[in-house]
């Protein structure tokens, strides 16, 4: 198990180095003088330009600049934001819990609804329920989620007043220190009445919007995986044992059907983070996606560079974890040759 983990971990190192290089080169390709790009200053005098060039190390060969940058990364220096002059890593870490909270909720929403929907559709294949569900599923994964978010804001939040339009908490009613950055946890820690429910209330719409595509994919995937598994010999064996249909479907079939579903859920983490960019923009959710878009509009390239690296690192790590989970739920991988 540990060897398996270390092997997979070792495989991610070259990916990450290459990624660093790619982003490094990409940011250098941004049109305009690199000093202007880096400092955000305009109309600089030649003397100051030379000074800044030297300060930023731009007078050195490119490979040295890269090594310098890479060694900075190893020390946790992801650059300095132009707009806030803050450390990019710190800014990212402050905002990241909000994104995690949103993503986890969205995934929970998708899994909790998607799995049973898919299983039920497979068991009742060809029924009207199955057909309606598959129709909804196509609609779900074809959904432009930025529009879906606006639509829900328009109906649920504005017209029916069932949910707040934006933000993570009603800041007029509640005021407490953030401890973990996770609003659901902080609200409980604060001990303020109703804070937890309010945080949950704020999380509801964004999580639904972000979870829509995963929901559609999971329901569909579960259904087709389940259909395949239900015709396997071992399911017949399970029925030949005289087990209840619930146990046959919910344990023997589902356990096997889950293997491809887990893979898909893992692969969707990247999609989810990408979707978070849109969702956070729509709901003014103070997470890293929102921050990334703002960095672009402010032409804050150091923040953009650091942010993309960090988000990709998270995705790579999550994929690693998925591989491990996959190994656990699929005994053939663990014990295989």
């Amino acid at each position, binding site marked *: 198990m540990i060897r398996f983990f270390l092997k997979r971990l070792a495989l991610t190192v070259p990916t990450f180095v290459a990624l660093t290089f790619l982003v490094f080169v990409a940011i250098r390709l941004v049109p305009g003088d690199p000093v202007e790009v880096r400092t955000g200053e305009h109309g600089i005098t030649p003397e100051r330009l030379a000074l800044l060039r030297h300060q930023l190390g731009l007078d050195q060969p490119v490979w040295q600049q890269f090594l310098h940058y890479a060694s900075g990364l190893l020390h946790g220096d992801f650059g300095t934001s132009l707009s806030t002059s803050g450390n990019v890593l710190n800014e990212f870490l402050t905002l990241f819990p909000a994104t995690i909270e949103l993503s986890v909720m969205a995934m929970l929403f998708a899994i909790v609804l998607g799995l049973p929907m898919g299983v039920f559709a497979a068991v009742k294949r060809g029924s009207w329920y199955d057909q309606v569900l598959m129709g909804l599923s196509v609609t779900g994964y074809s959904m432009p989620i930025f529009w879906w978010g606006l639509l829900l804001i328009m109906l649920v939040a504005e017209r029916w007043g069932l949910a707040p339009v934006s933000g993570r908490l009603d800041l007029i009613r509640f005021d407490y220190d953030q401890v973990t950055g996770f609003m659901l946890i902080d609200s409980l820690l604060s001990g303020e009445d109703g804070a937890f429910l309010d945080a949950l209330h704020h999380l509801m719409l964004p999580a639904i919007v972000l979870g829509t595509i995963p929901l559609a994919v999971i329901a569909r995937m579960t259904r087709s995986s389940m259909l395949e598994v239900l015709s*396997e*010999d*071992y399911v*017949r*064996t*399970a*029925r*030949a*044992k*005289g*087990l*209840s249909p619930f146990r046959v479907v919910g344990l*023997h079939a589902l*356990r*096997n059907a889950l293997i491809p579903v887990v893979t898909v859920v893992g692969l969707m983490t990247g999609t989810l983070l990408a979707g978070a960019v849109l969702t956070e923009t729509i709901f003014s959710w103070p997470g890293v996606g929102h921050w990334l878009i703002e960095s672009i509009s402010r032409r804050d390239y150091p923040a953009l560079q650091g942010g993309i690296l960090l988000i990709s690192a998270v995705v790579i790590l999550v994929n690693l974890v998925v591989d491990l989970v996959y190994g656990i*739920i*699929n*005994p*053939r991988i663990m*014990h*295989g040759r």
Partner: protein
Amino acid sequence: MPLLDIRNLSVSFATRAGRFTAVDGIDLSVEPREIVAIVGESGSGKSVAMLAVMGLLPWTATVTADRMAFDGKDLLTLNARARRRIVGRDMAMIFQEPMSSLNPCFTVGFQIGEMLAAHSGLGRAARKARAIELLAQVGIPEPERRLKAYPHQLSGGMSQRVMIAMAISCRPKLLIADEPTTALDVTIQAQILDLLMTLRQDTDVGLVLITHDMGVVAEVAERVTVQYAGRQVEANTTAELFADRHHPYTEALLAALPERAHARRLPAIPGVVPGQFDRPPACVFEPRCAFHFDLCRSVKPTHAGPELGRALCHIPLVQGKPTPSRVTAPVRASVPARASAPGDAA
């Protein structure tokens, strides 16, 4: 009273091209401790008939029968819950593909223990002890260690042993074995057959053995029924069947056994088993039959008497020669010009 008593069992499937009758009016009875073989080519409906008894057919199947009773209980009227109490406990089944019949996600111990948990009141420790005992009984070395094994770590023969251990875990009265040795190596086949015979000796279990291998039948079965295209064409004791075949299909089937062939070339039955769309209207074997005549295409044959192996034929054979037609009424009794014997039909 027979353990399993089936009269006129039919199974049909709803397909896109209409109803397909996979099993057409078969009878079967199995006494306690008895080994009955069902023989036929692939597609003859022998597995389907037994899956119907176990209640394992998909929802597209329709099962009808005059009588389908097990151990005095009418399986046709039993509700699903009551039936699940019988299936697995009193009536168990093992399958053709042992490797894919075990759930790849669970250990051997879990899969055996689950069966015990469903049908016996044994506690956790007792279940484990019983599982070890069972694995030892089916000849698996190091049973304690094997409990923790996953199916992919077992060979085909080992998997089939595990399947058998699982099937007999609740001391069933009837064990249905659906081509239990087909997917295995020849040496392993004999071991598994021996194991089944030993089990019958030790546990008094009745056995229905589905096979297409006449050699296996000769070796273990006490009675045989022969199925062709969903119909039962002959039923007899093994001894009598091997002494004299009354249906042309059985005759041809035996003639096709290498060890019984006398001619230079191995006689084969021409053609293939008819499928959903090319079933002959009257006698299903007529197109491939060496003895067929006009009547076979127009009138459905009926079962002959037990002295003729209940052969489903107008002109049951006796010592390889057709008897005068059993149908006298509307058709002129034209005994066909005798075709070449199957032995030199090639």
